[in-house]
């Protein structure tokens, strides 16, 4: 680790101020991604601004058909929340399968989304459910938020404050964990929304999370697993790495997609 200045922000505006004043400041949430990066000296921010003291960013609320989750809410809180479990069980289930207990007790939804790891689970939930990412400056729909590998639409000093999930008619997330890291080798979120079906895939895209148009229109036609026995036209480039070829991942998209549809009932 290189040296840095540490600030514990008491509010979002406090954090924003500190970010602005720093020459190269960085937000730290659960630290589960950022701290290992610092320890390996892969990053050297001048300042770390800790959101741990911003109580306004933590918590879950349900309002009609919308579930709002504060950016600093941990994976464990989402997994164990009775409200999330009843409104969007797929989301609680997804959170309960992230990493291990230690990671779930510290890692946050805001940190996960801001980081946009191509194998992370939450991006599939946001894109699949058509969530809205709320920042201290604006609201960004998930379709515009995830812009590439570890890239998002966030501006330099922008802070995620909450994520708003619309309640689906039904939804299911199926993850094929990488046998080594347990991140998603492929994870598929299938959600039947009032506006139509959405299918989002994480783990497989060379540019990160993406939607599968062919699956969505097929499921709009008939919401059954067999509808997915079609060609997946217009797929983006798929990842190739030591854990799986693009072909293997493409197969998993279909298999996990079908299992998600089946599990939706």
């Amino acid at each position, binding site marked *: 680790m290189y040296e840095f200045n540490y600030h514990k922000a008491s509010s979002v505006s406090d954090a924003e101020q500190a970010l602005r004043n720093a020459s190269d400041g960085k937000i730290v949430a659960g630290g589960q991604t950022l701290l290992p990066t610092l320890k390996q000296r892969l990053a050297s921010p001048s300042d770390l601004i800790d959101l741990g003291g911003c109580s306004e960013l933590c918590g879950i609320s349900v309002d009609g058909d919308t579930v709002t989750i504060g950016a600093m809410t941990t994976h464990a809180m989402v997994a164990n929340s009775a409200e999330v479990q009843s409104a969007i069980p797929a989301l609680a289930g997804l959170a309960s399968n992230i990493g291990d207990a230690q990671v779930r007790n510290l890692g946050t939804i805001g940190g996960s989304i801001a980081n946009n790891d191509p194998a992370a689970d939450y991006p599939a939930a946001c894109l699949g459910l058509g969530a809205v990412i709320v920042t201290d400056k604006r609201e960004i729909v998930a379709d515009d938020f995830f812009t590439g590998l570890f890239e998002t639409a966030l501006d330099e000093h922008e802070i995620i404050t909450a994520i708003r999930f619309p309640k689906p008619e039904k939804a299911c997330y199926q993850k094929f964990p990488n*046998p080594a*890291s347990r991140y998603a080798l492929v994870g598929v979120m299938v959600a039947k929304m009032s506006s139509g079906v959405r299918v989002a895939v994480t783990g497989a895209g060379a540019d990160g999370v993406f939607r599968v148009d062919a699956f969505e229109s097929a499921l709009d036609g008939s919401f059954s697993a067999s509808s997915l026995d079609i060609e997946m036209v217009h797929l983006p480039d798929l990842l190739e790495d030591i854990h799986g070829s693009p*072909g293997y991942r493409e197969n998993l998209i279909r*298999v996990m997609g079908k299992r998600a549809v089946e599990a939706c009932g």
Partner: protein
Amino acid sequence: MAGNQEFDADRAQDFRVVGTRPARPDGMDKVTGKARFGADMNMPGQLIGKILRSPHPHARIKSIDASEALAMPGVKAVVTAEDFNADAKDRDVLTNIMARDKALYEGHAVAAVAATSRIKAQQALKRIKVNYEILPHVTDVDAAMQPDAPILHDDMFTQGLDEKPAKPSNINARHEFGHGDVEKGFAQADIVIERDFKTAATHQGYIEPHACVANVGADGMSELWVCTQGHFHVRSQCASLLGMDVSRLRVTASEIGGGFGGKTTVFIEPVALALSRKAGRPVKLVMTREEVFKASGPTASSSMRVKIGVKKDGTITAGEASLNYQGGAFPGAPADFGAMSAFACYDLENVKAVAFDVVTNRPKGAAYRAPGAPMSVFAVESVVDELAKEIGMDPFDLRLKNAARDGSKSSYGPKFGKIGLVACLEAAKAHPHYAAPLGPNQGRGVASGFWFNFGGETCSNLNVNEDGTITLAVGTPDIGGSRASMCIMVAEELEVPYERVRAIVADTSALGFNDTTEGSRVTFSSGMALIKAARKAKEEMCKRAAMMWDIPAEAVYWAEGAAHPSGPNAGDFEPMTIEEIAGSAAKTGGPIAGHHEYNADGAGVSFGTHIVDTEVDPETGYVKILRYTVVQDAGKAIHPDYVEGQFQGGAVQGIGWALNEEYIYGEDGRLQNATFLDYRLPVASDLPMIDTVIVEVPNPGHPYGVRGVGETGIVPPLAALANSVSAAAGVRLTDLPMSPPKVLKAIGATKLAAE
């Protein structure tokens, strides 16, 4: 391998302490964090060492310029190959711990720095200028054997051929074992199956990285604190590598967080000593996990062909194996052990195993639990499984029909003594696991395995303290609960409570030479030494009692932790307890002790049989383990918990090897997965409870019948898993690890995955 007849069957009838499960003496320290492992030691004034490693898999080192690094504040010493004894006994180890003319693998040490902090040492590494001439490399075993392969060592001419070859190659040696005439045997067979197999290199995966602190005094008197399986071996290696007298180096073994064979040699220890000698201060060196992967001693990868012939009645007429093992950049891939173990479970008339020990641009392999055996046994037991199906015979019946028994001529030469293979096979066949129903996409696999076990040089001390408690000094680091077993055996022999005995692992200055904790030897050899030491102490205590009673020593016997007069003629005395005898030792001749030093012979070979059920997901290729049972001959389980733990641990490591673990090299000759995020060890959530059955066929060579149990357990799982997954998937899998993409490809479920 026939040792003395040591086993006492009458004695074994009424063990009081042996076979119980008391708490282990190191348990409390380990669960409370008090135990001191390699990196827990710090010495006053200590520097931190860091090693500069080659980024290239194969390169000539043209020059090393450390002047800039040495000029940095806080940097106290830099060492390179020149700082070691060029005449050291073991040239390969000398060249492995610090590259001399060439870097032979990615991660090969080329220089090292000692500085006042880790950060300063790391910064200094960046300022050492190494001028490399990059050479072509080879990391695959079959590719390395090709005539046009890049050659690692110009002076490597294959040994074991009838004639010395004209040209150097990467094949260090050819080994052959067997007897009979395999061609004749195959001609007698009704069915012959021949297949090719591959296994990947894996790492022992011990959780504690290598760590040590070295302190070389100005007068040359030196100390080394180190996490190792064998501190005496570390001492002789380091003394030779540094050109110093053995007596000047005192090595203390720390507690150890796993070794599995990987900590039986030296890597950073001589480097820390060389840095300390040069800097004149203690130097601490700790490997990172990436260094452990890239620059310690993983096991061999292999490419094998096995051919076995069988008659319709199940008689195996011949078995033949050809084994290519690469063990990294230096000779020593355990191909010979692979060839010796391949058919050890069978009593065959015609058998032949040929093995090649091959070098590649990978880190120098070290031992890994039953080195060499899991691979060849995987190949043989896979073919046996297929033959059983082919002739419609139960796989246990086929194995029983051909099993090695007491007195069988082993496939590697000697005749077996008393062995427990048939007992294991019968116990496995009768186990409820074998009769349990299976569901769709599920399969059951069975396989047996074998390991030699080792005895070796041993020296142990026993002291009867002034209050009648006992302290044991053992020279073999405890990596599997052996301190508990030592205390049990001494408590048994002296007939005192387990709690009255304490065992410590003594440093190299306290005992004569001890071979390393390897070859499943410790409970056997250190245990036997302590039993004999206890017998000497007992004899001495009887003598002391006799002296106080003023009767002949022969008229006294030992029982219930006390000396007794042998009968009314000897005299009418109350038994004299060990506490009383110890308490008056000053008056009867001074301290009471026992010791025993020998080269232990007669380590009984050990066999085991595993059963595993798996379920294969036909759409993803994912393999789930449903149920696992280990049956193994322990000779005698001194502390059954640790025996079961060894069985389970071996099975788990074998499961990892079979399903997930793999050293993956890129085209660039660099390791692609040197982290636990990319190299998957099985963890608790991947596994069912591993059931165990301890078979006890006493080893005649040990007073209590002990056989080594640490290694055999890793031998059957590769084959058992392959047989189980093949049954579940409906296709024979011959290439490990059976990762999901590979299994799916074999199933051919999708044309996409088949690309």
